[in-house]
């Protein structure tokens, strides 16, 4: 299912959640990944369109964060921590074993991708592997290998930390976009009220006291969406 008007409308819902629409860029990129499995050209164009940014601005953000993928991730993303605590407990060996088993970082057929990860914030359960950001800790080499095998079969077990069976990559990206959080009826009016305040949030809070602004417009009344709404230019 490619990016279509449904995605566009969902992106707009995310944008309305914040008093300054650009804040929705990170959630929106997760949303794009939930549709395309990575940050696709269409996805970049969608974010740029909805937020009034250039594509370069969107890609500049997308390439900064490691969770935004440049290529199709399959259904199962295995992130192996190789930071010291996990390394001491065998994390690097797990990672290298996975790469050997797959003959690389991707098994397109089984829809499995393996990546090295920095500290996953669960050092007490080292070594740790995440399947679609669901934690699996205190793995022996055998358990780790079994975990990979189960993913290749498309049936990972429940996490031994959270007890949750991880959904497929696109589904978890949809969760992370927050589109289904179910509280937009509260958040959108609150954001709109803040944006319309007499002394409203600035489009760019910036690095100095200078009011830094943006071609996409400043909700404080310069150009952009607010201007268009005031001028009756939005259909």
């Amino acid at each position: 299912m490619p990016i279509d008007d449904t995605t566009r409308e969902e992106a707009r819902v995310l944008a309305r959640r914040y008093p300054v629409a650009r804040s929705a860029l990170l959630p929106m990129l997760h949303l794009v990944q939930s549709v395309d499995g990575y940050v696709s050209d269409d996805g970049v164009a969608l974010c740029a369109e909805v937020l009034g940014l250039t594509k370069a601005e969107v890609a500049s953000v997308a390439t900064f964060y490691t969770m935004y993928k440049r290529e199709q991730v399959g259904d199962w993303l295995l992130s192996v921590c190789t930071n010291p605590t996990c390394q001491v407990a065998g994390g690097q060996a797990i990672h290298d074993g996975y790469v050997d088993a797959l003959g690389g970082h991707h098994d397109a057929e089984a829809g499995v991708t393996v990546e090295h990860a920095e500290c996953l914030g669960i050092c007490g359960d080292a070594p740790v592997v995440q399947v679609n950001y669901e934690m699996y800790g205190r793995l022996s080499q055998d358990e780790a290998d079994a975990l990979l095998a189960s993913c290749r079969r498309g049936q990972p077990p429940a996490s031994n930390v959270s007890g949750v069976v991880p959904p497929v990559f696109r589904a978890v990206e949809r969760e992370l976009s927050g589109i289904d959080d179910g509280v937009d009826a509260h958040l959108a009016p609150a954001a709109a009220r803040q944006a319309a305040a007499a002394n409203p949030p600035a489009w760019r809070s910036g690095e100095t006291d200078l009011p830094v602004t943006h071609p996409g417009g400043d909700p404080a009344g310069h150009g952009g969406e607010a201007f268009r709404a005031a001028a009756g230019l939005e259909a």
Partner: protein
Amino acid sequence: MSAPAAPGAASAEDLVTLTIDGEQVSVPKGTLIIRAAEMVGTIVPRFCDHPLLDPVGACRQCVVEVEGQPKPVMSCTVPVAEDMVVRTHLTSAMARRGQEGTLELLLVNHPLDCPMCDKGGECPLQDQALAHGANQSRFLDQKRKYEKPVAVSPQVLLDRERCVLCARCTRFSEQISGDPFIELFERGALEQVAIYEDEPYHSYFSGNTIQICPVGALTSTSYRFKARSFDVVTTPSVCDGCSAGCGQTVQSRRGEVQRQLARTNMDVNEAWNCDKGRFSFPHLTHAQRLTTPMERVDGELVPTTWSRALARVADAVRASQDVGPGRTALVSGGRLADEDAHVAARLARTVLGTDLVEHRTRFAPADEAPARAVLLARAGGAPGLTYADVEHAPVIVVAGLDPEEEVPVLHLRLRKAWRQHRARIVVVGPHLGTLDGIAWRRVATAPGAEPAALAALAYGDGEIAAALRGDGAPAVLVGERAGAGSLAAGTRLAEAVGGGVAFVPRRAGDAGGLAAGLAPGLLPGGRLLADAADRAEVEAAWGPLPAHLDGAAPVDGLRGILAAAADGAVDVLLLAGADLARDAQSAALAERALARVAGAGTVVVQDLALTETAARYADVVLPVTATQERDGARTDWEGRAQRFRRAVDAPELAQDDWEAFVQLAAVLGHRLYGSLDAIRAEQEQLGVRAAAHPLPEAASAGSTGAPSGDALLAVVRPLLLDGGTMLAGADDLRATARAATVGVSRADAARLGIVDGADVTVTGAGGATVTLPTAVLPDLVPGAVVLPRTSTEPPVTRLADEDGVVAVTLAPVAVPAEVGA
């Protein structure tokens, strides 16, 4: 904080006194340490800092020591404080060590390719490595390697290995020009400047990023590997691309221009210029450049000599004068220098004996020139409204002007006013144009109906009128496309709200032409031909004006002149830099006039290049010098006159425009001027009229009546990068041109079944057509379309009727049905 102190001396309580390297200095509050150090003559090394960009503190090179602070302080991010004691690298070992350390780190990934890098010789990194760097690097490991170079646009190349990630270019594009098509991608050691692959850095201001790059990471396609900064001859100059008056530096080698740079002039262009000014110089040596006089013999233009050419023109003038007075016309095209225009005005009036003069190829409203003459006289020869006034105006009203396309550097100043001073920009007219992103409010009018809206703002009680009456002096900017009466209405608006007003023409020679009186009914310095006192003042300098000029009603600008010519009332048409076949607002009328004069009389073209007019109609063609090849002066839209100097030699047989005029006068028996100084002395002596005439009364409402039937009235807007002859040869520059489109309102698009992006055939007067993609503009008033002036083939001037009005019909181009296999 990066902004220079507001005009006017800071009062004592706004000053902060500190000590830098033992020297006491008082600087305005809020000044950054690095700026304060400059004031005592110490240049703290820096890469990311730029006085016109927000401080960022990224490169960490500008380390200084501040007494009482244990850690080194980055002088580019910290403002001064009372009694602060600063020690720079000149007196502090800590600062010196800090700078050496940062330099070593910067060189870790910087290639040692100085011998082949364009920046070599003018590179801050190179200079500092020499001055402060270690002889040997301890770095044994591997440097980053990238594919090189990457074209971020057809004229800007990026060598990522050389980049020190100071973010000057990306900050410029975001903060100054507002077109962030280049950004920092990736992070950490892989951070790099990049574009999105299908959205290149097409900015009118991209060249500035090359100039402010502190290393050789950004280079231009036109200068790459061409010269060394220490091998070029540098000449200060003023750009002739538009009426902005940007300071420019011309660098040449062996008599050829190698590159042009923005020359800092804080009063005008600050440190910026546009790409047209920077990159358009290839036209100087383009194949189309005229290098020799020519005359038409048996229908062909053949080389000739100046004396033969001038004799032929003089013969034609004498023959015309035998028929009757005032049967010659002189039209310049907005390129002339102030001195040229002055000589042309005198030549026309006293030697040719005609008031058929014009410096505008557009059909300006009849009241524009008299109203501008009033503003000129009111300003007393000094700049009227200035860039600084615009920057500090709390409200800026813009009518009939699209600054980014017409006067790009003014656009940057408007953005600065908007971004740094929260100026409220009010656009009056049928659409927003490129002010889209920074406009505060819009007053929608039909094309040409701006004066009524301006008048309403002066006396209204709405939100905009209230803002105009708030603190500070608003600015009113009236452009070329505002309807008849706009300048007078704008002036009255400015008077009513205690603000300033300016007319902003597009062409560089426009203000000079007006000041010289190169328009029907005008005399130099805001004087009127119809005014006896004005005439007397001018006659004191020029000698008596021909009697037949006295009391004659002035013709209606270029339209009147061309109509007269088309009716057989003109025998000799002198065109100085005016390619009327292409540029006249109505190509139809121009063609008729040119054909008539070429057939029965004489067309003389004096220009830089063999224009369409010259090739098709000229009997005599005279080669002249370009700005870079001569001395002269030009007056910008503010009314600021600036001199420029010769940077390179002209083609051997080319002469300055004023010289050509003087020589023609000489052949006709009149001695005008012997030198530029003589012209300037007379300009100074004449000055401007001591008391301004009253503003012309408002003309009857917009001459551009509503078109009939299905026709849509076109707003014909020039694009910065179009088919103009001064862009000849600058292929990389032209490759960044904005696509020509026909802008259609939403309502009309819906009514006509036209979708955004689809090709439509635009049909104008006489059935002439152009086919263009549609841009549906939400901000355009229904009933109007927006067309580019000379970006298409044929140019839109071909679609105009003889009054210059472009009323068009649109028809979607039928998509051919798929042909079966």
